C-alpha cells in the first residue's frame, strides 16, 4: 500500500537544467512531500495534457539541502533523455506544470555501525539517488567512497559534484574514455580484496546487468549490499503489478514476484532471485 504520506499534486517546473550530453536536472517544489522523503525513494512524474499516457518513475536526486543552489522546499530529479517521456520532460521550461505522485517506495538506510565503510556503486544515470544520500550521510558526520562507471565519459553526470564530496571516486568506462577501462566490477573486486577486516556496505544503482554482477560479488564475500532497482511501471503505488522482479520474499522460500514500487525500489542483494 502507498505510504500514508504520499501526495498527488501539480506543481510548476522551477528549473530544468541541461547538464549536457543528454543529462538533465529538473527542479520543482515539493515542500511537504519532500519533508519525510528518503534517498532512493521516487516520484512518478507526468505532464498534464500531453499525449504521453503514463507517469514515469524518477528517483529523487536532491532533497532540500543537497545542492547548495537548490531552492527552499525544492527537490531535484536527474534524468537522461532516452524515450518519449524523458524527451517530453526535456522540452519543459520554468512554469510548466508537472503532475507529481510521491514520495513512493522504500529508500536507502545507512548502516547502524558507524565504523562501516560506505561504498556507492553507480552506473551512468544510476548515480541519481546518491547526491541526496551523500548529503544525509554528511549531516551524520559520515563519508562515502564511490565507484562510478558508464559506457563512456559522456554518461557520468554530476561527476565533479561527487569528486568534491566523496572520499574517493573511482571512474570506469567501457570504452576507456575516462578512468579505468572496463566495468565497475574491476575496481570493486580490488576493493573487496583489500578490505581486510573492514566492514563494507554497498549501495548500488545502475543497469540491471551491473546490479546482478555486483550483487553476486557481494553475496560471495558476505558483504551487505542494497540495490536501488528500476522497472517500467504504470502506477507507482502498487496496483498495476507491472514492475515486479523475481525475489525470495522468504529466505530459502519459493520465487515470488515483488513490486519495485512498493517492496522496493531498494532491495537487499540476497532477496533477489535473478
Amino acid at each position: 500500500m502507498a505510504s500514508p504520506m504520499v501526495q498527488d499534486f501539480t506543481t510548476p517546473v522551477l528549473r530544468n537544467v541541461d547538464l549536457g550530453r543528454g543529462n538533465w536536472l529538473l527542479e520543482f517544489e515539493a515542500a511537504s512531500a519532500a519533508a519525510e522523503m528518503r534517498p532512493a525513494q521516487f516520484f512518478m512524474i507526468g505532464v498534464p495534457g500531453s499525449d504521453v499516457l503514463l507517469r514515469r518513475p524518477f528517483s529523487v536526486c536532491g532533497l532540500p539541502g543537497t545542492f547548495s543552489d537548490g531552492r527552499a522546499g525544492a527537490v531535484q530529479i536527474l534524468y537522461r533523455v532516452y524515450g518519449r517521456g524523458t524527451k517530453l520532460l526535456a522540452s519543459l521550461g520554468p512554469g510548466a506544470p508537472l503532475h507529481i505522485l510521491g514520495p513512493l517506495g522504500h529508500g536507502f538506510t545507512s548502516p547502524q555501525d558507524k565504523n562501516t565503510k560506505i561504498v556507492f556503486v553507480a552506473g551512468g544515470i544510476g548515480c541519481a539517488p546518491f547526491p541526496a544520500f551523500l548529503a544525509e550521510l554528511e549531516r551524520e558526520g559520515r563519508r562515502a567512497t564511490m565507484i562510478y562507471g558508464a559506457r563512456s565519459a559522456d554518461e557520468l553526470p554530476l561527476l565533479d559534484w561527487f569528486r568534491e564530496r566523496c572520499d574517493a571516486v573511482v571512474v570506469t568506462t567501457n570504452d576507456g574514455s575516462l578512468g579505468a577501462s572496463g566495468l565497475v566490477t574491476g575496481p570493486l573486486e580490488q576493493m573487496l580484496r583489500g578490505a581486510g577486516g573492514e566492514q563494507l556496505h554497498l549501495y548500488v544503482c545502475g543497469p540491471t546487468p551491473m546490479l546482478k554482477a555486483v550483487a553476486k560479488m557481494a553475496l560471495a564475500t558476505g558483504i551487505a549490499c542494497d540495490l536501488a532497482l528500476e522497472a517500467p511501471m504504470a502506477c507507482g503505488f502498487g496496483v498495476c503489478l507491472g514492475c515486479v522482479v523475481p525475489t525470495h520474499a522468504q529466505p530459502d522460500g519459493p520465487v515470488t514476484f515483488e513490486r519495485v514500487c512498493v517492496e522496493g525500489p531498494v532491495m537487499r542483494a540476497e532477496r533477489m532471485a535473478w
Partner: protein
Amino acid sequence: MVTPDLSVAIGSVRLKNPVLTASGTFGYGLEFLPFLDLAQLGGLVTKGLSPRPRKGNPPERIVETPAGMLNAIGLQNVGIDVFLAEKLPALRGHDTVVVANVFGETEAEYVEVCEKLDEAAGVAAIELNVSCPNTEAGGMVFGNDAASLARITRACRRATRLPLWVKLSPNVTDIREIAKAAEAEGADAVSLVNTFVGMAIDVEKRRPVLANVSGGLSGPAIRPLAVWMTWQVRRAVTIPIVGMGGIMTARDAMEFILAGATAVQVGTANFVNPRAAVDVAEGLTAWLKEHNVASVRELVGALASPPTASGCP
C-alpha cells in the same frame, strides 16, 4: 436545479453513481485510501481472485503504446482465502459496493471461488473473468465462443446466489453471440470490454517487449472499439451493460452510457490519476446539471440517430 440523481441499478445491485473501478486496475481498493474515500465510488471491482494465490507472469509485464498500454500481468493475486480473511473485512467499513472478480483455470476452480464468495458478507456481486488474455489456461479460453461461455456461466450460476456479471472479451468474431449466451444462462449483467490482445516489439533487440509475448491493450486507444461493442451488445441483449474501455473523463463515460451502458468502469486511468473514477463521477454530475437532466438513467441508451441516416456523399 437540485443535484442530479446519479444512482443506477444493475439488476438488484444499487449503485449511488454509475462509476466503478475496473478489475486489475484498483488492487483490492485499500491501496487507494490515501487518495480517495471509497464511498465516493459507485463501486469497486477487485483484482481477479483465483482459488489459490498466483504469482503471475515474469517481467517485462507492461509497456506504454500509443494512447494506451499493453499488460501481461498473468493474474497475480492473493487468492480467495486471503481476500476473504484480510482484504474483505477491511473493505466492509467503507460504504461502497464491492464486486469480486473471479478467475479460474478450470470450471471447477471458477465454481470453487464462487461458492466461497457466496457465503461472504460484503460482496454485492461476482464478475466472471472469462476474458483475460494473459494466462495459458482459463480466462479467455472460456470466453472465446458462445458454447464455452454458456457452460462456465451455467456452472457459476448454480454455485452462487449473488448477482453474476460476465466480463466479455473483445477478441471474438461477434461479441453479441457471447453476450446472448451469458444472458441465456442467467447472467444478471455483462461487462465489456476486457483488453484487446496486442504485441509490441523492441526493434533494437529484435524481441517482444513483454515476456509473455502478447499482452492486453487498454487505455484511450481502445475507446472507440469498446463504445462500438457496447452499442452492438445493447441491441442484442436486455440485461444491463457495464461499459468500459479507455474512460479517462466524464465525457468518455457519457459515450458508453449513451451507447447503452447502465454503469461504467474506469481502468487504466486509475494508474495515471488515482482519483480518476471520482473525477468521472463528479464530472457526470456537472454534465447533468449543465444539461438540466434530472437523472443519469434518462441517458442510458439515449442515442439519437446519426445526422444523415442515408448518408454517404
